[in-house]
């Protein structure tokens, strides 16, 4: 068993390699036997019912949760080892949350330059210039001095994406970044992510947006009761899955009008 994304591309080291990961909360096993790889410049999308463990998986990769077993390797380096400093690992990872989690007491600009200036030790003028470049690119330049509560949900989420990009992460973790948004605002956020993908950003996503998954994913993994039940290219998993559980799930999402 070698898991998703080991088909032929096993030549170079993948950006992320998760092996036999297991995680439980008390008696509840939330993730087990999770094995997959994310090669450079690709996107792996996790789909699955609510409670199937998608957020937990992303939080484990970000070392916000401690795993029970298994290994997580970033660029071949074991980041689940006991002697690893999580702060060092997180400098290479960007994470965007479902609920944006912008800092309400800071302006958009301050939100974005916090990590570059405090964590990476970049000079403030440089960080600001860099931040403005990103804001410009995503059409948010005029919002730089606003506080987050003055922005629409879609704008807030795009700021959160910019904030996670400002540190040039090796890998971007996106956890259902559109599920707190009005349908009309979803598209602006998704097109931002598509742009990033086009620029070669490596990412792992959890999403309920099947149409989006189809566009952006190199590989889709179906998570069911804490296990990767089925995986493959988006056309196969989303349109012609083998297992009945996957078919069932896709059908339910379809009926809810998200395909």
């Amino acid at each position, binding site marked *: 068993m070698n898991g998703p994304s080991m088909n032929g591309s096993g030549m170079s080291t993948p950006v992320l390699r998760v092996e036999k990961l297991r995680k439980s909360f008390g008696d509840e096993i939330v993730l087990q036997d999770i094995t997959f790889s994310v090669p450079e410049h690709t996107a792996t999308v996790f789909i699955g019912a609510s409670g199937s463990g998608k957020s937990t998986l992303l*939080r484990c990769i*970000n070392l*916000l949760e401690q795993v029970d077993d298994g290994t997580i390797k970033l660029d071949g380096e074991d980041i689940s080892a006991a002697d690893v400093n*999580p*702060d060092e690992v*997180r*400098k290479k*990872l960007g*994470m965007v*949350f479902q*609920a944006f*989690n*912008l*800092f*309400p*007491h800071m302006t958009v600009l301050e939100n974005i330059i*916090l*990590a570059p200036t*405090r*964590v*990476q030790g970049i000079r403030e003028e440089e960080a600001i210039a860099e931040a403005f470049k990103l804001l410009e690119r995503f059409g948010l330049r005029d919002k730089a001095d606003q506080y987050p*509560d003055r922005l629409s949900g879609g704008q807030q989420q795009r700021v959160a994406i910019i*904030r*996670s990009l400002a*540190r040039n992460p090796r890998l971007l973790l996106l956890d259902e970044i559109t599920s707190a948004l009005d349908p009309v605002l979803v598209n602006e956020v998704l097109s931002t992510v598509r742009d990033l993908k086009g620029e070669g950003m490596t990412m792992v996503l959890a999403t309920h947006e099947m149409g989006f998954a189809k566009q952006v994913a190199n590989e889709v993994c179906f998570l069911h009761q804490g296990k990767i039940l089925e995986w493959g290219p988006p056309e196969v998993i989303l349109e012609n899955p083998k297992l009945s559980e996957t078919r069932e799930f896709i059908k339910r999402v379809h009926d809810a009008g998200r395909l």
Partner: protein
Amino acid sequence: MSDNRGRGTGDNSGSAPYDFGGAWQPSEIEVARRIARKKRNRKNALIAALSSLLVLGTLLVVLVTSPGWITLRDTFFKWAYGFEVLPKIILGFGTNATLTLIAGTSVALLGLLIALIRTSRSPALTPFRFLATIYVDVFRGIPMLLVILLVGFGIPALQLKGVTNNVLILGTIAVIITYSAYVAEVIRSGILTVHPSQRAAARSLGLSHIQTLRHVVLPQALKRVTPPLLNDLVALIKDTGLISILGVTDAIRAAQIQTAKSFNYTPYVMAALVFLAVTIPLTRMTDRMLRNSLERQNAQGQA
């Protein structure tokens, strides 16, 4: 520029009843509404004025016509005498003010430190966490007067070498000890109300635990607890008067000395007025800040 705006979008300009050019006139309904509103406001103001006049006037008449009024006035409100002793009382209040400043600053720092210790999860701090909890429990549960007596009279009684017997310093220390326990709890509650997702976001950006506290958690926590902390400041100003029991000449003690000489209680009333002159503006300010922060929170809830 206003004609530019007034032009509209062309397509539906014929059907739009709106003219944004500035030539808007209130409709008849709106004019009638405004007149009705003005009428109602005038009526309300009249009612308020009449009822105030009636109630306060009655109280005043009852007061000055009561048989003891003259004695009462001469005992508590002998203004000429009051203004004579006012400089001494204000001089004494200087002690209260200085003490508030010194104790206030120390309390803020010590309270913050204790709150940080109590909310930390570092295993190295376990014994300190334990001690901080006991400290808070004990000093929130003892009347401050008792702490002042214990420290102010008890420590000199030990006759320790190198330890001050200055009651002013000892009294200040007693106030700091007690208030730090209160303030630590206020700050701690503020820290606990910052949502865990804020920490998660900060940590996932690579900020260390300390950086997360300094840049993300504390600014939000302190902003939230500013109104209750200002309340504590008002209480602190008043409670500095308690150390007059050690013989420190503050505003209360100064008034007491005058009263003892003249057997007239007007100096006490003057001291009360001096305290009010400082505490009432502070209380008003606290009220306003609380209202503003509530409004902000509500606005956020809607967004």
